[in-house]
């Protein structure tokens, strides 16, 4: 039997694509290698509202970006997530919890701090129950006629003029499934993208990083309002330790490192919680769960739709797609897959959407992201205290790169040694620019 569309991956992107495609009358199969609706790997539960980026809030002017923003209709148990920039049939029903996030704050070893937003009272996003979100989408996809097979891993996809042959393996053994088209939504650590040839010409960028996340209860949260907290402790780790709320009613701390460096993430997080300036926050805390993942920090794939296949979400870019981006991609991939089946150039339409929906396609944005060295890599503990204290004393707010770039003249005057370390004349950060 041949499907119209096979979707690989039951995360937010794949689940949204499945729902849209099924509701549009396509004969759809979704395969998911783990248990449907269950997240094993570490991934963020942030549903951000605005169009803001991860490393800079400055709106790029070099590319005409049409980024998806989110608003939420909040009910007593039942919320509706609206994606602006997409038609009304993209609205999602969500029945999980909403944990408001009010800001994002960078903290120095001695506790100096500055935030992204001047106000601690505006909601910038929510930490959501991502599994509930996915379960809801998958249920709607199923109700609309999508066949869902979990415990089924896609090994490879052959794409030809006749359609796609999707090789899967499960408890039932190995099978080859046929479809006219495929949407590949297998996440930040994809094997299929490589197997399909989408990595040809794509620079390795900054390479592979590994993440570990600890879910904790009974943390003494260091601020009255929930937010993303980003701790800098260069003497312990050359990366940031992130902390935030985590459903249901818990907290997470996580960090990452390049796989090239043999860094022991478990020992970093253990030391952070038991033997660092911040340990007292964790005095009564217990680890409830651990999660991990890898990510390839390669530049985005520009032509993410080719032949009969569309690669969507984290597998086509590094981490900044986020939940709302994945849902937007899933929606558009389904719509444009249908157009392709109806004889129109769905691939061109999808690629056009993809290339204008995210900051990371703007060379200007990438220059701002790469233009300042990472604080935890470049500075000592004392210098970090000086820098963050300087920002706090002057009342500057914003993302670190934006603050440093905006006030560089003042920084050069007040903290010349720190400025030189963060903004050296030559920076080699690897190539984040998108390639075809």
């Amino acid at each position, binding site marked *: 039997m041949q499907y119209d569309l096979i979707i690989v991956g039951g995360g937010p992107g794949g689940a949204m694509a499945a729902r849209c495609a099924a509701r549009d009358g396509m004969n759809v199969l979704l395969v998911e290698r783990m248990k449907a609706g269950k997240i094993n790997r570490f991934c963020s539960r942030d549903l951000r509202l605005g169009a803001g980026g991860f490393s800079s809030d400055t709106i790029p002017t070099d590319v005409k970006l049409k980024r998806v923003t989110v608003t939420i209709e909040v009910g007593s148990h039942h919320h509706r997530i609206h994606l602006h920039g997409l038609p009304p049939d993209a609205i999602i029903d969500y029945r999980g919890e909403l944990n408001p996030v009010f800001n994002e704050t960078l903290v120095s070893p001695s506790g100096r701090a500055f935030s992204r937003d001047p106000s601690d009272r505006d909601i910038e996003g929510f930490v959501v129950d991502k599994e509930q979100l996915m379960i809801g989408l998958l249920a709607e996809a199923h109700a609309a006629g999508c066949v869902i097979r979990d415990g089924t891993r896609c090994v490879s996809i052959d794409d030809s003029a006749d359609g796609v042959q999707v090789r899967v393996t499960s408890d039932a053994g190995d099978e080859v499934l046929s479809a006219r088209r495929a949407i590949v939504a297998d996440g930040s650590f994809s094997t299929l993208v490589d197997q399909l040839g989408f990595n040809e010409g794509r620079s390795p960028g900054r390479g592979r990083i590994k993440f570990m996340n600890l879910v904790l209860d009974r943390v003494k949260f260091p601020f009255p309002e929930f937010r993303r907290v980003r701790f800098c402790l260069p003497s312990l780790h050359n990366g940031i330790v992130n902390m935030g709320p985590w459903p249901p009613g818990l907290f997470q701390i996580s960090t990452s490192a390049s796989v090239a460096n043999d860094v022991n*993430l*478990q*020992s970093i997080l253990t030391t952070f919680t038991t033997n660092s300036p911040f340990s007292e926050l964790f005095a009564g805390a217990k680890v409830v769960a651990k999660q*991990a*993942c890898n990510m390839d920090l390669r530049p985005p794939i520009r032509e993410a739709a080719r032949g009969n296949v569309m690669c969507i979400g984290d597998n086509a870019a590094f981490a900044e797609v986020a939940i709302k981006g994945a849902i937007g991609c899933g929606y558009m991939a389904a719509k444009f897959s249908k157009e392709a089946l109806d004889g129109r150039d769905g691939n061109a339409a999808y690629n056009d959407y993809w290339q204008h929906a995210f900051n990371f396609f703007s060379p200007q944005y990438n220059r701002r992201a790469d233009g300042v060295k990472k604080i935890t890599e470049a500075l000592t503990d004392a210098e970090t205290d000086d820098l963050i204290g300087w920002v706090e004393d002057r009342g500057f707010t914003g993302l670190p790169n934006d603050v440093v770039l905006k006030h560089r003249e003042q920084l050069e005057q007040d903290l010349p040694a720190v400025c030189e370390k963060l903004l050296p004349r030559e920076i080699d950060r690897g190539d984040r620019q998108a390639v075809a």
Partner: protein
Amino acid sequence: MALRITDDCLNCFACISDCPNAAISEGPVIHVIDSNLCTECVGSYESPRCIKVCPADTAIEWDAERVESRDTLLARWGKLHPGETPALFDSK
């Protein structure tokens, strides 16, 4: 020695696709290394790739009960990669 995955495995899939011999697969609870396919990356890398990419630090360990010589591992690599030239590094 062969490599073994412990209960500290977090099922994140980082190692599965990186294994040059496709020796790692999902087990019922944690990932599993097939010791008949593992060459400890002799033939491919300077040190085991799975250990390199694994975020969980204690999830992959050396199996002291299964010690194999470098020659044995290299021969196995050759059978798994017919026609290819192994990448060799100084023995430790």
